[in-house]
């Protein structure tokens, strides 16, 4: 089950790329860690720049100072007891950098890091996702280099054994008299050893977890997916109904889809529009870019063998809370209406089968969009739900309002003209379409009046600004009296 990797993702911070509208906490964590890495990389590099320069100066100094004496120690021997990693008098820090393991790996992984950072700028990410996604895989080079960065052990300290024979605090004052059989100072020549590489200890566990998750996702994606039904809706929307062994979903989740015939490497996320109670799972794909257009084209050609589809998922937090409220206010804005297809269907199934887990008695559904064109399929869904409810005599279960925010004079004129008709002129639904944005204060007070003693759950899938105003209304219209109406705003990430 996907839930067992929830905290793994949080810990690793980035096992997933995400959809725009989801505020995954793991992404925020990942970005914070990335900023920290960038900052500390800068500090680390500046420090080592100074180190190499000063090591080089010490090695070249011939003035009998402490640093020049220390630099000369153990340089010619086979044993690894030296302190100064620079062994030559006539080299430069740059040359040393490129001929040692830490220097070379350092430069390579820093360049990789910088490329990753520049391609992750929000502007690039939002406009040219592939550049970001493929460049970000440089992290493989980054972590590989990071692990071997410290192997050579160039940064050294005095060995414990040597500290017994040479106390630096005392002996540093008279470096010319070290070693030999000097009875005065008991200072043997100091000996130095490497501090072992440590990075691998920190990154090993997360790397293994990440590799494991990628392997798992790959294995999952190789499972066979059977496309049971393909429907082409108006405004270039493709509905795919599919079947996969062992697939189980909850409302509000999403899957990643890959179609090798369109692009071998691209995976794109889509919200599941089917209810868990149905025996298939479905997505509605709208043509918004290369990949989606190609996919829709491929299916429209109706070749005898349907193109192969790979599915990874489902992901996302399941929103079971929707079913726990006696009264639910569901608000879907624009593309945010998609998860509600799943929610509404599921609620209807549970209601029909008198499912005990369903506490909901009444739903108020608000659909806000500029124009219904691309969501004609959702329109049909509402129409069929409307019809089913009437047939079961439970027409009052669902109360939905559609708000068209992209109206113009001609649409409004038509609406006014057809005022007396039974069905709405725009959608064909029994409920009339309203124009413009809803007045939430009116809506909330109406719901509060109709259900004076209920707990009302408010669920939103839409922009942040709308979330703020809904939250405000929830506070405003909740009664202080615990027996009276209470509105709870759910910040579920649908």
């Amino acid at each position, binding site marked *: 089950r996907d839930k067992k990797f929830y905290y793994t993702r949080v810990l690793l911070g980035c096992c997933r790329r995400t959809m725009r509208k989801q505020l995954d906490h793991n992404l925020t964590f990942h970005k914070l860690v990335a900023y920290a890495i960038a900052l500390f990389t800068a500090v680390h590099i*500046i420090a080592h*720049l100074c180190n190499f*320069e000063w090591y080089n100066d010490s090695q070249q100094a011939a003035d009998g100072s402490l640093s020049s004496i220390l630099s000369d120690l153990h340089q010619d021997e086979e044993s690894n007891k030296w302190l100064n990693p620079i062994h030559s008098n006539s080299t430069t820090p*740059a040359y040393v950098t490129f001929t040692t393991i830490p220097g070379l790996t350092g430069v390579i992984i820093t*360049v990789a890091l*910088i490329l990753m950072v520049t391609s992750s*700028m929000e502007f690039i990410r939002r406009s040219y996702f592939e*550049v970001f996604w493929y460049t970000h895989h440089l992290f493989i080079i980054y972590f590989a280099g990071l692990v071997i960065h410290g192997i050579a052990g160039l940064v050294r300290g005095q060995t414990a054994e040597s500290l017994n024979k040479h106390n630096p605090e005392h002996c540093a004052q008279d470096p010319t008299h070290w070693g030999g059989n000097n009875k005065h100072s008991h200072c043997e020549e100091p000996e130095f050893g490497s501090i072992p590489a440590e990075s691998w200890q920190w990154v090993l566990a997360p790397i293994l977890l990440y590799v494991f998750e990628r392997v798992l996702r790959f294995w999952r994606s190789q499972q066979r997916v059977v496309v049971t039904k393909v429907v082409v809706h108006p405004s270039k929307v493709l509905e795919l109904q599919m079947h996969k062994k062992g697939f189980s979903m909850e409302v509000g989740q999403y899957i990643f889809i890959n179609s090798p015939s369109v692009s071998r490497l691209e995976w794109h996320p889509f919200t599941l529009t089917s209810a868990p109670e149905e025996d298939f799972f479905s997505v509605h794909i709208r043509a918004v870019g290369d990949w989606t257009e190609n996919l829709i084209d491929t299916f429209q050609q109706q070749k005898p063998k349907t193109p192969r589809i790979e599915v990874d998922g489902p992901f996302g937090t399941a929103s079971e809370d929707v079913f726990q409220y006696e009264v639910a206010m569901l608000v879907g804005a624009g593309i945010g209406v998609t998860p509600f297809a799943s929610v509404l269907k599921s609620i209807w199934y549970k209601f029909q089968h008198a499912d005990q887990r369903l506490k909901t008695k009444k739903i108020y559904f608000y659909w806000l969009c500029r124009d219904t064109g691309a969501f004609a399929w959702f329109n049909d869904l509402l129409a069929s739900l409307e019809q089913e409810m009437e047939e079961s005599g439970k027409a009052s279960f669902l109360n939905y309002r559609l708000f068209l925010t992209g109206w113009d004079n001609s649409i409004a004129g038509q609406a006014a003209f057809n005022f007396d008709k039974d069905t709405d002129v725009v959608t064909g639904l029994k409920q009339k379409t309203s124009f413009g944005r809803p007045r939430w204060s009116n809506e909330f007070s109406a719901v509060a009046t109709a259900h004076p003693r209920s707990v009302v759950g408010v669920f939103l899938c839409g922009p942040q600004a709308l979330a703020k105003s809904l939250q405000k209304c929830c506070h405003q219209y909740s009664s202080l009296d615990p027996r009276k109406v209470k509105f709870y705003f759910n910040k579920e990430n649908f």
Partner: protein
Amino acid sequence: MGRIEWAMWANEQALASGLILVTGGIVAVAAQFKGWPFAAYSIAAGVFVCLLEYPRGKRKKGSTMERCGQKYFTAVVKVFGPVTRNYYVRAILHAALAVPAGFLLSTILGMACLGIASAIYLLAAIRGEEWNPIEQKPQERPQVGGGTIKQPPTMPPPRPPVETRKKQPAEVAGQENPVPVAVEAE
């Protein structure tokens, strides 16, 4: 990957390289490393690159997010016409600017990054991309009546002359009674 404008990424990379050049340069000059004149050069080169790359060019498709306050830089960069518009020029310029920074360890990173930016610009130039300034849109006059009034009248409506518009005293305002009316006090 058909819709990528490589120049946008090259721009980010070059801007980052400029900052890295400046940082590396400052470290070497402040600590007086051997060969620090190269670092002084790299500070100057870094600043120049940052100034050149700060104004983002206009994307061919879709809207482009401007960087904060970039319109002042755009005005200057625009002046150079084809020199700043052409990405071949930028590719060669960045490659040339990067070379002296390679002589000092502190600035080698800046050199590598600027070199990569130069390579991406070369790719952009080969694909025919160009730097176009983001122009400020002229301020639209706020429309009265929500745009439904197409030709608002320009003259005020005709009014009677000032004298006749003076307010009439209250008593004369009412009707003229044909029969005298006496008010009986109760």
